[in-house]
């Protein structure tokens, strides 16, 4: 057997960052003045997640770390180190929800998923995914793992991962932040032997008694014969140890997706106005439409529940005369329904549930031409990246620049502001060259000039007059004249 363990160490923080970013993307509308306050929240404020049960900081972002806050600090210490730190409450229930959502996301790609979530004070949240039975379908380890990591990247969470013969062993490696995909027993054994005992799930008492006989790392434990261990420790410990060595495979409860749709989102801040709920509800409707499309279903009734701190949960039932699935059809209904609604107090969380589904009409002819293909897309990108290299595929995205060189970026991670202010320009060429080439052909100008200065904060300021020129063969080029009156070709109009 081969299992991968995905250790999600900052789920609450991740969902907060994602929600805040999402909010910012929607906050371009001028009427939402208050949003600016929130939009800056994720990017440059120290944020820490605090567990009140243990009085410990459990998660914190990079800026908080820079301020000196570490995981394990108390609230007072954190506040003393950085008085303006933004504290988020830690909630096991919420983390479990997020983990379940992640499992729902992965379920179409991998069938055997185990949720590893224990309601304990310092619980470890993670997912275990069985891989050995999937390699056959994906055609090898690399495409499979690329597909999974792609889905994880889309979920936008930080995680450590590892793979090993059992969940227990993979978990130890993941907690050790191993972050490498292994599939041969020798490699796994080598990797395991370097792990300290403290990160295994053995109880402190057992670790203590092992330390007394001089066993302090997993390597020594793996080398010991089972009989010798059997005399010293109880049954549970032995079971764990044999699982760690890959000799037994303990029974696990596999994750099964719900029969109905249930999506719970913890809001990153309290919302007083129903209009401000829209971006979060839109996100949930998107999830719903993906869910329905993948199962070839429609629905005619959904429930939106708004949670508050004190007041009872508000239940909004929305019905539609025609069964439908898309965001565009459900969002206007939600907006109409909540237009005149007054929230009794600021909302803290929203949940979207859907219990009743309706089969899609099979008489409908466009079923095959309009089939949902999100998974096919992911598999395709995973396969292409596996063969051609990680940087071989990209989606061209609009960037914040009016210059042709910087108008398009190829990676979404290039900047958070990407895509917010897309410049639309009707003289953009189809293709640009990496570097402008000198113009050496006879051409005739058919459009221009358009003068573009570079931004003042760029090191080498340029002033260019752009033209569209046509060669004798009717090839249209984007040409420019620089300050020294030299002519260059920068792009093509196809």
């Amino acid at each position, binding site marked *: 057997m081969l299992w991968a363990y995905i250790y999600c160490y900052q789920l609450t923080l991740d969902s907060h960052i994602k929600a805040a970013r999402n909010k910012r993307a929607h906050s371009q509308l001028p009427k939402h003045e208050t949003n600016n306050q929130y939009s800056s929240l994720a990017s440059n404020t120290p944020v820490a997640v605090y567990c009140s049960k243990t009085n410990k900081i459990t998660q914190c972002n990079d800026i908080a770390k820079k301020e000196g806050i570490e995981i394990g600090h108390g609230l007072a210490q954190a506040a003393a180190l950085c008085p303006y730190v933004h504290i988020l409450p830690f909630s096991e229930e919420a983390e479990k929800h997020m983990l379940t959502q992640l499992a729902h996301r992965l379920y179409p790609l991998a069938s055997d998923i185990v949720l590893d979530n224990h309601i304990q004070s310092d619980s470890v949240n993670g997912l275990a995914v069985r891989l050995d039975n999937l390699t056959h379908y994906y055609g090898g380890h690399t495409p499979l793992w690329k597909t999974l990591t792609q889905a994880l990247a889309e979920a936008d969470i930080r995680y450590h991962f590892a793979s090993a013969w059992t969940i227990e062993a993979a978990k130890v490696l993941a907690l050790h932040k191993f972050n490498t995909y292994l599939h041969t027993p020798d490699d796994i054994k080598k990797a395991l032997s370097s792990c300290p005992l403290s990160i295994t799930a053995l109880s402190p008492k057992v670790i203590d008694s092992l330390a007394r006989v001089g066993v302090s790392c997993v390597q020594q434990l793996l080398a010991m014969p089972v009989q010798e261990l059997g005399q010293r420790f109880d049954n549970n410990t032995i079971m764990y140890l044999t699982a760690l060595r890959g000799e037994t495979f303990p029974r696990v409860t596999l994750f099964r997706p719900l029969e109905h749709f249930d999506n719970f989102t913890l809001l990153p801040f309290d919302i007083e106005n129903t209009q401000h709920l829209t971006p979060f509800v839109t996100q949930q409707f998107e999830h719903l439409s993906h869910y329905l499309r993948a199962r070839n279903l429609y629905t005619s009734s959904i429930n939106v529940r708004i949670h508050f701190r004190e007041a009872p949960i508000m239940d909004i039932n929305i019905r539609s005369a025609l069964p439908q699935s898309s965001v565009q059809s459900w969002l206007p209904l939600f907006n109409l329904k909540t237009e005149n609604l007054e929230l009794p107090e600021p909302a803290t969380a929203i949940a979207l549930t859907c219990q009743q589904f309706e089969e899609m009409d099979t008489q409908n002819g466009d079923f095959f031409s309009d089939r949902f*293909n999100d998974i096919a897309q992911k598999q*395709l990108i995973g396969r292409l990246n596996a063969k051609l290299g990680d940087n071989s595929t990209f*989606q*061209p995205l609009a960037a914040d620049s009016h210059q042709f060189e910087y108008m398009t970026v190829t990676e979404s991670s290039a900047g958070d502001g990407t895509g917010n202010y897309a410049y639309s320009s009707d003289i953009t060429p189809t*293709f640009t060259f990496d570097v402008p080439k000198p113009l050496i052909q006879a051409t005739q100008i*058919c459009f221009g000039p358009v003068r573009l200065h570079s931004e003042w904060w760029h090191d080498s300021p340029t002033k260019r007059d752009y033209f569209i020129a046509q060669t004798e063969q*009717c090839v249209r080029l984007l040409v420019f004249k620089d300050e020294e009156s030299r002519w260059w070709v920068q792009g093509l*109009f196809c």
Partner: protein
Amino acid sequence: MNKSLSVLNNHPHIWRARDQKQSEAKFSLGFPRLDKALNGGVASTGLVRISSLTGVGELSLFKRVICQHRTHKLVVFINPPGLLQSPWLENLGLKAQQVLVVKTRSEQESLWAAEQCLKSTACHCVVLWSNAVNQKEARRLQVAATHNDALCLLYTPPQQQALQLSSQKADLGSDSQANLSNQSDSALPITLDIALKGNPHVLAVNIRKQRHGWPKDNIVISHRWTPDNQAIKWAMSHNTLSDQALHSVS
């Protein structure tokens, strides 16, 4: 004998030129003359080869085909001749999420990627730039495209056509080598094979081969794909008012 011929006639793979009616779906290009020559437009599935120089409006010509159908699926650009610009895509009518660019290092990789994309069922249209495909590769792409309800646009440089014409002339000289390459090139098992040639202000389309139809040369369409200074020129030539005003200054 008559009977045996009629049996042959019933074979579904035999097409007679007098059958103009087709059941296959066609995507209109939006140019009436060209659509008429193509019996309604470009077939919705299969491999289409376009031989042209890069930059004569060869992508904009297929604007309707690329943007207006199966919009929930991907449009993949494989091995494009430069960095694809997102504002241009937006002007064309494509959303960024709908577009995927694949960079490859060799011709073989491009063809492999194209086939994978066509087979994935996630793609509506695969736009591929390649220097040459042989008969076998073309057949593979054609089958992958037709079986998965997708369209593959293959852009090749125009040298092939020139080479073919010259070899046709050399045909009389019975150069068997050239004859063979000519055979394999013109006999690609694809849906549509066209060549584009830009003339000032117009675009000439040569249909070299089409399934269920006749080749047709020199279909001239007026095609605008870049902004031009027409508006300014027109305004200048029709502006009699400001001329007077200018004169009155002195």
